């Protein structure tokens, strides 16, 4: 539905968006994820019509939208700051866009009532924005941007100001609303957990470029670069050189005096090519005895234990000085914990547990 074609945006010398080509499909919940300053807001503002691309074109439903001013686009934006009109009540805020369409009065009433119901704000319709809580304001902003039935809804860090609990509730609410209304959502966030929770596809950005676009599980399990692996979730990165060893299999030598690691990878590597093994902490098993049938096993000493309630993360120092994180679920009470500081333990993982990434 939306197609960015070689879009570049420069502010003077500074390139905020760098030759970007992406597609966003109908009824999709698309998340833009990236560190602060990587150009996410700029991308949204180009879609909404507040900025024009320096180069390249943006198509909405096949039409170049460059000449369409913001007030004529079937796109609504929910601002990072909510941007609610302080002089209008919640009801009037939601009706604001509808009144501009010259909609008949009772249609407006119906639509606003429906929006209030959807966002569970019926009780607050008469209040002014400064008389409601942060979470309610955020829902007003959402209701206001949804009221006009936009083809595309842009959400710029919509939940940034909320505390964790409210945030999680709202994330599910957002998904629910997206399902009910069938609107295409593009959400900007710098919180990877949020992107993974709500989105059907996640785009990871850095310095004005898209690094990878994929479903949340593929982004997590099959990152295409060290950057993405490191940005999304927790990861251990082991540097080494690859040697092909049978179909899709590689022996990765990572430190002199240690046996090479066995890795399976669909990505092709040439003999002696430098590479990184990215492996998630929860895929590393920890044991006190050397495991009998593991593809890879290394010995180390427990440096640190981070107890997070449901899980514990062990920081294990290898003889090489590298620190590997291993996670275990705390299925038993803490008093019976098997390992403690300074214990010598074995870490093991299978050949398919990690992904091999080029430098």
């Amino acid at each position: 539905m939306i197609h960015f074609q070689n879009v570049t945006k420069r502010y003077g010398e500074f390139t905020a968006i760098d030759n970007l080509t992406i597609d966003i499909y109908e009824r999709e919940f698309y998340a833009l994820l990236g560190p602060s300053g990587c150009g996410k807001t700029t991308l949204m503002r180009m879609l909404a019509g507040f900025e024009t691309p320096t180069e390249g074109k943006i198509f909405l439903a096949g039409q170049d939208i460059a000449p369409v001013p913001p007030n004529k686009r079937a796109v609504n934006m929910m601002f990072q700051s909510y941007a609610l009109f302080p002089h209008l009540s919640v009801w009037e805020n939601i009706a604001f866009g509808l009144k501009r369409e010259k909609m008949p009065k009772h249609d407006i009433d119906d639509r606003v009532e429906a929006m209030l119901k959807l966002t569970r704000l019926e009780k607050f319709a008469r209040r002014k924005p400064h008389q409601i809580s942060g979470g309610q304001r955020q829902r007003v902003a959402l209701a206001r941007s949804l009221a006009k039935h936009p083809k595309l809804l842009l959400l710029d860090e919509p939940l940034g100001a909320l505390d964790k609990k409210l945030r999680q509730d709202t994330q599910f609410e957002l998904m629910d609303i997206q399902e009910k209304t069938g609107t295409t959502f593009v959400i900007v966030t710098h919180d990877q957990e949020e992107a993974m929770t709500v989105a059907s596809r996640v785009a990871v950005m850095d310095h004005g470029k898209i690094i990878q676009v994929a479903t949340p599980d593929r982004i997590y399990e099959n990152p295409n670069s060290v950057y993405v692996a490191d940005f999304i979730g927790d990861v251990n990165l082991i540097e080494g050189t690859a040697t092909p060893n049978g179909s899709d299999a590689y022996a990765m030598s990572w430190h002199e005096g240690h046996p090479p690691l066995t890795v399976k990878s669909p990505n092709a590597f040439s003999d002696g090519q430098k590479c990184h093994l990215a492996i998630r902490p929860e895929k590393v098993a920890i044991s006190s005895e050397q495991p009998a049938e593991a593809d890879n096993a290394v010995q180390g000493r427990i440096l640190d234990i981070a107890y997070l309630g449901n899980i514990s993360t062990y920081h294990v120092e290898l003889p090489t000085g590298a620190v590997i994180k291993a996670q275990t679920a705390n299925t038993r009470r803490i008093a019976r914990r098997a390992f403690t500081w300074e214990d010598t333990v074995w870490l093991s993982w299978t050949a398919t547990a990690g992904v091999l990434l080029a430098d």
Partner: protein
Amino acid sequence: MRRFVLIAIPYVWLLALFLVPFAIVLKIALSDAAIARPPYFPQFDWAEGIAAFIAELDFENFVWLTEDDLYWKAYLSSLKIAVISTFFTLLAGYPIAYGMARAPEEWRPSLMMLVILPFWTSFLIRVYAWMGILSNEGFLNQFLMWIGVISEPLTILNTNSAVYIGIVYTYLPFMILPVYSALERLDGSLIEAAEDLGCSRLTAFWLVTIPLSKTGIIAGSFLVFIPVLGEFVIPSLLGGSDTLMIGKVLWEEFFSNRDWPVASAVAVVLLLLLVIPIVLFQRNQQKQQEAEQ
């Protein structure tokens, strides 16, 4: 005790500089004119006592104000001039304030300086300068005839137009500053939100910018309206004989007719009339403060 002193200071100030002079003026207003020094009667006399003194006071002068139509016409005409010039000051001041608030951040202090700068020269000199500009042989007429717009000089000085020009010029900063401070606080994303929801630039201005600068507009209007209502210098220097303003009438009663009691009555009524807009102004300020909390 300290708290009491702190609270007492403004009250003592108010008592000494407002209530006492007001009581004196009110007393004169209730007296009768006399050819004497001071030119009114009765004088307070210790021998006769306070009761006899009060018995001599009456409301004659206030009754007189209602009988001679000069006075209510002067009040009405002042009101009209104040309303119209406040409107024109707003019309001139709003775009200036808007431009200042939209200007790049680093320019704003300099622009602010330019608005305040005229205050550093005497107000009288500036009004006299306008006489030089507006007179029949003044710069304005010379310029207009030079570019050929007119062939005969326009008579502006000593008319109500000159009074309006003088007032708008003099009071412009009082309008600009509160409007500017309201516009500067305005969040730019609100305008974008309005456009996003289907407003053109103009409707966004009308539906968002204007309502959100309302407190500034009201504050500025009162800051202009209140002093203009009693304005004396501008109408007497720039206005003509048909410019009727209560400040001028007041001055003439005091110094030309030496009728202090009537003049005092005029002043008391003017003050009472001003209390209404001042109270409204205070309420606006209070509402604004509450809204900001």
